C-alpha cells in the first residue's frame, strides 16, 4: 500500500510548484507583451495606411518608399515589435494547450526560432531595400 503513494504526493503544494513556474522572472513576459502591443498601435495604423497607398505598386516604387529614412525606421520598428509580440503571444498559447512538457519545451524553442528568423529575414530585406 505504501508503494502506491508516490514521493510527489507527500511533497507540500509549495514544494511542488517551486521551480516549475515563472519564479524569478515575475511579470516580465506579461509586461513585454503589453509594451510591444502599445508600440504596435501607431505602427500598425501607419503600416495599414502605407499598404493601402502602395496597393498594386511596382517594385521600384516600393523600394523608393522603403528607402525613405523615416519609412525604413518605422518598418524596422514594426518588424521588431511584431515578431517579438508574436513570439510572446504564441508562447502563451503553447503553454496553455500543449500539455506534454517535453513537446511544449520543444514547441516554445521552435516558436522562438521561427519568429526570430522571420523577423531577421524581414529586417534584412528592409535594410537591403533601403541601403543597396
Amino acid at each position: 500500500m505504501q508503494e502506491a503513494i508516490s514521493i510527489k504526493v507527500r511533497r507540500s503544494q509549495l514544494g511542488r510548484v517551486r521551480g516549475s513556474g515563472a519564479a524569478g522572472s515575475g511579470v516580465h513576459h506579461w509586461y513585454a507583451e503589453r509594451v510591444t502591443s502599445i508600440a504596435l498601435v501607431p505602427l500598425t495604423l501607419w503600416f495599414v495606411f502605407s499598404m493601402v497607398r502602395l496597393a498594386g505598386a511596382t517594385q521600384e516604387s516600393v523600394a523608393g518608399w522603403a528607402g525613405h529614412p523615416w519609412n525604413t525606421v518605422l518598418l524596422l520598428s514594426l518588424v521588431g515589435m511584431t515578431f517579438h509580440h508574436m513570439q510572446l503571444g504564441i508562447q502563451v498559447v503553447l503553454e496553455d494547450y500543449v500539455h506534454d512538457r517535453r513537446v511544449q519545451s520543444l514547441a516554445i524553442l521552435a516558436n522562438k526560432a521561427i519568429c526570430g528568423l522571420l523577423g531577421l529575414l524581414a529586417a534584412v530585406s528592409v535594410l537591403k531595400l533601403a541601403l543597396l
Partner: protein
Amino acid sequence: MKDVRDALMVGHTSDGTLVRRPLSPHLQVYRPQMTSVLSIMNRVTGLAASAGTVLLVWWLAAAAAGPAAFEHVQWFIGTPVGLFMLFGWTASLMYHFWGGLRHLAWDAGWGYELDKTHLTGWLTIGATVVSTVLIWVAGLLVLRS
C-alpha cells in the same frame, strides 16, 4: 486518491451522496457569452495574424530580391487564394488591433463593469467590420487609379 488535491474536490449532492467536484469547470460547462467568445477570438485572430506575417515577409524579401521576384508575389496575392489570405489577414489584424486596445484599457483598470464590457465588445466587432471594409475599399480605389 491519487493526489492530495483530490481532498479539496469532494462535495455532497442534495441527497447526501459524495461526489467528485471538478477542480476547474471548463469550457463545455458554460454557455457561450460575449466575454468568453471575444476572448477566444483574440487568441484565434492573434494566431491568424501571425500566420499572415509570412505574407509580409515574403513580400518584403521579394521586393529586396528584385522586380522579377516582386512580380511573382504580386501575382500570387492577386489570385483567389492570395486575395483570401490577404483579406483574412486584414480582418484578423483589425480584430486583434481593436480587441488589443480593449485589453489595454482593462490593463489600465478601465471597463470592467458588465455594461462597459458589453459595449466595448460590440465596439470591437463593429470597428473590425468597418475598418476591414474601409481598408479594402480604399485599397481597391488606389488599385484602380
